[in-house]
C-alpha cells in the first residue's frame, strides 16, 4: 500500500507491504525492512540486527517519533486529498508563524511590498517577531490590527503576488 506524508514541507511517498510484524518499505531514500511492533507509546524496531526503541506520539494528522536523540515530525496526507505537492507554497494568504498578539502593522491595503519586507510585528511569549512578506506583490487585504490575537488558522494579510 502507498503511504503519503509530509516531512519538512516535502511530500514523501512510501510503498509498504506487511505480514504481521514484518514490514518492507520502499522509501524515496532506499528500502527499509524489519520487524516493527507498537506498544503504547513505543515502537520496537528490529532491523539490520539491531533493536531500537522508538517513542512516538500522534496528534491529529501529525506523527512525532524520537530517533537517535532527534525528533521527526510527519504529517499524513490523506489518499486522494489534493495533489500532495506544493501545499507549503505561498498562495498569497499570510498566516501567523505562531499564535500571539499583534503589536504593529506596517502596511495597508493597496501598498506594494517587496519580498522580505517587514509587514507586521507579532509578540508571543514576551518576544517580538517581525513577519516579513514571502513574496513581492500588492497588499489586497489586511485582517490584522494592533492588540488583536493572531490565530494559526486565520490569514493576517493577503498579498496579490506579482507575476
Amino acid at each position, binding site marked *: 500500500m502507498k*503511504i503519503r*506524508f509530509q*516531512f519538512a514541507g516535502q511530500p*514523501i511517498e*512510501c510503498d*509498504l507491504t*506487511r505480514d504481521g510484524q514484518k*514490514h518492507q*518499505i520502499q*522509501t*524515496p*531514500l*532506499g*528500502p*527499509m*525492512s*524489519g520487524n*516493527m511492533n*507498537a*506498544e*503504547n*507509546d513505543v*515502537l520496537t*524496531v528490529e*532491523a539490520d540486527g539491531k533493536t531500537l526503541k*522508538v*517513542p*512516538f*506520539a*500522534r*496528534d*491529529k*494528522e501529525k*506523527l*512525532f*517519533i*524520537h*530517533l*537517535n*536523540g*532527534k*525528533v*521527526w515530525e*510527519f504529517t*499524513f*496526507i*490523506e*489518499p486522494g486529498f489534493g495533489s500532495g505537492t506544493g501545499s507549503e507554497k505561498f498562495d498569497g494568504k499570510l498566516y501567523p*508563524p*505562531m*499564535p*500571539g498578539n499583534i*503589536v*504593529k502593522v506596517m502596511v495597508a491595503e493597496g501598498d506594494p511590498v517587496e519580498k522580505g519586507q517587514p509587514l507586521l*510585528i507579532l509578540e*508571543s*511569549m*514576551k*518576544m*517580538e517577531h517581525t513577519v516579513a512578506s514571502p513574496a513581492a506583490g500588492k497588499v489586497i487585504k489586511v485582517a490584522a490590527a494592533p492588540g488583536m490575537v493572531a490565530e494559526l488558522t486565520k490569514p493576517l494579510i493577503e498579498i496579490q503576488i506579482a507575476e
Partner: protein
Amino acid sequence: MAHRILIANRGEIAVRIIQSLKELEWESVAVYSEADARAVHVKAADHAVCVGPPRALDSYLNQDRLLQAAKESGADGVHPGYGFLAENAGFAQKVLDAGLVWVGPRPDNISFMGDKLAARKKVLGAGVPITPGSDGPVTLDQALATAKKIGYPILIKAAAGGGGKGMRVVRSDAEMKEALEGAGRESASAFADARVYIEKYMEHPRHIEFQILADKHGKTLHLYERECSVQRRYQKIIEETPSMALTPKLRSAMAHAAVEAAQSVGYENAGTIEFLFSEGKFYFLEMNTRIQVEHPVTEMTTGIDLVKWQLKIAFGEPLTLEQDDIKPRGHAIECRIYAEDPLKNFLPSPGRIALVREPSFSNLRIDSGIASGSDVPPFYDPILSKVITWGTDRTEARGRMLRALNEYVILGVATPIPFLADILNHPKFIAGDYSTHLIGDHFSKWAPTASKEEQALAFGIASALFASDGGTQRPAAVSAGRGMAPVWETIGAFRHGEGK
C-alpha cells in the same frame, strides 16, 4: 514553625520551589491562570488558587488578585520565583504591607538594583568597574549622541531589564530609531517600564556571574561563579560552573567585587552579580535580585539548597554557613529546554505536549514543569524544563549531559535538544574557549544532520505507524497523543478529589 508559602509563578520554577518547601515541611500554595488549570505545578502543590484569565497581566501579574489569593489560602509568605513580579519592588512592598513575608530581597534592594542605571552608579562608587554607556535613560537624540561618544556598536538595554528582554544591538545611526522603539515596547510589555539606556557593546565578551547569599544579620557570602556565555537572543541557554576562563586570582577578585557590590546596598537574600568578562578584565553588568534560572549548577557543586536558604533568610534565620564552608566540588552543566524551534530562529512553539519521557540516572537532575498532555500556552515565557548534570570533572559532566539530551523525549512542540547536543560537541565548547557569540558565530546556519540510512529508517517507521491506523487517529489506534490523555486526566481528577 511550619509556614505556608504562596508561589507567585508557574512552570518549572514553581515546582522547584515546592521541592524546597517539602524539605522544610512547609506548605505550598500554587497559583494558576485559566490556561494552566491542568499544569504540573498546580498538581505538585498542597493547595492551588486560580488567579484569572490566561493573559499574564490578568493572572500572574495581577498583584491585587495574588494578594487576595495569599489571604484566602492562609499563606504567610510569598515566593515570586523568577520573571513575572520577582523584581517588582512595588509588589514586594504590597506583600509586606499585607503583613506577609516576601521571600526575596527588601523592596529598596530590588528598586535600587532593578534600576540598572542607579545600580551602575552605586557599584562604581564601591570601586567595582562598569562598562561605558549613557548616564541615564535616552531619547533618540541622546541615544545618537551617546553612540557618537562611545562608538558603535552599542547595546540598547531596558532600565528595568533582565533576561534579554527589551535589548537591541545597534551598529549605525540608521538602525537606532526602530531599535529604540522595539526595545521600548518590549520593555514596557515585560516590565511595565519603557525606559531604555545605552552601553558599549563588547564584541566577544564572556558572561560570568557570582551567586550571593546574604542574611538579615549582616553576613554576605558568595557561592562562586556560573559561566553563562552560551546565549541566543541575548538569553542564556547553557550554563556551567566553574568557568574555564577564570584563574584562581581572577575568581577571587571577582568574588570580592561581587560581595562589595551586594553590600553597597545592604543586600538581603539570594542574588546574583553579573559581570561581562573580556580580555582578562571584568565589568559589573547588573545585579539580579531573585533566584536565577541557572541556580541548580551552583547547588550541584556546592551541595547548598539556595531556595531553602531564600526561605529561611526571609523568615529571619541567620546563615549558619561560613565562607570557608563553601567548597565547590566537581563540575556542573545546565541546559535549558525551551518550547522553541532552532530551525526557525528560535521562534516560540506553543502547543500540546504529546509525550514526555525523562532520562534518569545518577548525577542528573531535571527541573521540569511539563508532563505528557501538558499545554504550552503562548502567553508566557517558553521555558519547559532544565537538565543539569554533575561530574567529578568537566568531561564527565559533559558526557552525562550528552547522554541525558539523547534520552530526553519531548514530542509535540519543537525544542532545541539536538541543537544543544551539537553545541556541547563543538570544539570551542569542548575547549571551554567561547564567548557570548558562540551560537551566532558557529551555529547560525545550524540544521540537524541525518544520514540517508537514518532518513530511510525514519520514513519506514512513519509509514508503518501511519499504516497501523490508516493515517487518521481512530479510537483503536496505537496513539500516545490520544491514548495518554484520558488516563492522565483521570489521575488528575483523582488527586483533586482527595480534598486537601
